[in-house]
């Protein structure tokens, strides 16, 4: 059976050139970049080169890039590091209601240390209104965080405007750009954010390699205490091969982002256009245009996401869902609920996120096998039976 991978938001394939660049640092050049001998210095040079490449991708200085082990770690680093370093200025944190768990839960941890959280809602497309952020900011607000793009619904947020609002109120601003960097153009000079997270596994780099951009001159507490790695802010022996893979993936993304978009966006658009024609009672989630180019997300009414994922998997298609049953915690997606969807509809969440190499045939195959899956599950669904009964009346 042919396998079709449409779960970019969970992890992208590793680019062959990134793998090739990584291998020497897993084999012959295993040295520690902090060692003064030449093997160590070669590794250090490789880390420096990767830092330059990541900086180039987001238009920062190399010294503004701190390597971490995941997007979640970068978000923890930013939230906790900024809030605790500036606690004397204020103890309120403003967040959008659709932030990633690593942002929401970091803030929740900070609550135990005396901080308070103000959540800003979103509209039905999942867009955060900068004016709402401004309203949420109080004299106590020290930090705000709004993501650049939401991986569950694909919506891209007006981060530049929100950052401006925060700056005018002297509030620090972090953006979780994990879903965005490497897929759409991101320029930190233009966005003027204080910190920004990115992760390699969202743009064809390896897992376990990520970074936090920290604007020059920003006061932030170290995230891991120890040695002098990452300017003393994040101690621990560098994941050299991962960092090199991240650097190579960043270089390739800078070069190929446009052509990837040209390939994937028409296929994605086709999916968004045709899926609701093939299946009734389907809702596109997120903004129809202001969204990640590879990202299509829906709620299929009357049926549940995990049951659809299992059936798709049996047909060789890998996708994802924000349904309660899919999450380990068995909770419906906070993103979809914040957008005003009810629980039953949110349970029907389905995300198809295309990767490099997805073809028109793949999309056609999906459009062919998906309607019978929906039909089969709806036949089993008490909600669908109720809907049909009410329709008849």
């Amino acid at each position, binding site marked *: 059976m042919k396998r079709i991978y449409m779960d970019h938001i969970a992890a992208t394939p590793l680019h062959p050139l990134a793998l090739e660049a990584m291998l020497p640092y897993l084999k012959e050049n295993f040295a520690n970049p902090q060692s003064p001998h030449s093997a160590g210095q070669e590794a250090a040079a490789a880390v420096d080169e990767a830092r330059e490449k990541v900086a180039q991708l987001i238009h920062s200085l190399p010294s503004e890039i701190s390597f971490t082990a995941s997007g979640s770690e970068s978000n923890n680093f930013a939230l906790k590091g900024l809030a605790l370093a500036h606690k004397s200025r204020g103890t309120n944190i403003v967040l959008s209601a659709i932030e990633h768990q690593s942002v929401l839960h970091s803030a929740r941890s900070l609550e135990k240390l005396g901080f308070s959280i103000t959540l800003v809602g979103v509209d039905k497309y999942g867009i955060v209104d900068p004016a709402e952020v401004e309203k949420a900011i109080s004299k106590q607000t020290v930090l705000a965080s709004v993501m650049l793009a939401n991986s569950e619904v694909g919506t891209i947020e007006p981060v530049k405007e929100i950052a401006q609002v925060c700056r005018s109120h002297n509030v620090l601003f972090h953006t979780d750009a994990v879903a965005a960097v490497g897929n759409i153009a991101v320029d930190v000079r233009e966005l003027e954010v204080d910190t920004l997270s990115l992760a390699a596994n969202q743009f064809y780099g390896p897992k376990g390699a990520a970074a936090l951009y920290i604007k020059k001159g920003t006061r932030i507490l170290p995230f891991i205490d120890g040695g002098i790695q990452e300017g003393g802010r994040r101690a621990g022996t560098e994941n050299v091969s991962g960092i090199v893979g991240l650097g190579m993936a960043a270089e390739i993304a800078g070069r190929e982002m446009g052509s990837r978009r040209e390939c994937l966006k028409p296929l994605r658009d086709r999916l968004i256009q045709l899926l609701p024609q093939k299946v009734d009672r389907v809702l596109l989630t997120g903004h129809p245009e202001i969204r990640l180019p590879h990202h299509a997300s829906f709620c299929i009414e009357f049926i549940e996401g995990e049951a659809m994922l*299992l059936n798709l998997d049996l047909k060789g298609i890998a996708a994802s869902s924000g349904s309660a049953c899919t999450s380990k915690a068995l909770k419906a997606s906070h993103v979809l609920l*914040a957008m005003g969807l009810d629980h*039953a509809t949110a349970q029907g969440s389905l995300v198809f996120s295309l990767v490099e190499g997805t073809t028109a045939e793949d999309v056609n195959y999906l459009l062919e096998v998906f309607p019978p899956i929906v039909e089969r599950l709806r036949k089993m*669904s*008490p*909600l669908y039976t109720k809907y049909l009964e009410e329709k008849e009346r």
Partner: protein
Amino acid sequence: MIYSEKVMEHFQNPRNVGVIKDADGVGEVGNPVCGDMMTFYIKVKDNRLADIKFQTFGCGAAIAVSSMVSEMAMGKTIEEALKISNKTVAEELGGLPKNKLHCSNLGADALHKAIENYKERQKAAKKEAPKKSVSEEKCYCPYCDGPIEGLENYCQACQIELELCPQCGQLSKKGEEKCPRCGAKKAKA
């Protein structure tokens, strides 16, 4: 695959899916907040379950559990069917992922509700028209994922009072100014 072969087999070929229009008993459990909903229909003949049909809204485990319950109960006496428990269903299915065990609770519960409904109808046959037996909503604590018993919005394990957010319907700690899920301001009690 996260499920056993047996679960996947039932998920792909669920037995006894459907509706019995002139059922002798109907049982509904679950609600979309928790993720799964099941409706069981039974026909009873000579104190035995002569026919069982179900409809399920939910994940793979929920569908497999419903199918398994219907298969286990078919042809059994009322007393035998009442002995089917969440535990025996999960065992018959070759185990379920730990976080899915509450789905199997629902399968046996839904069948038991249908039987209860049948008994009520028998009693009420002379008096008034039968009603559907609908269970109270079973929910889970958002902090520890333990079950919340009955309609009390109180988690025994965490020993905290919970309340439903009027905006998103999610449970959260009582007394919090804003719902941590959707950001809506809670009305002060």
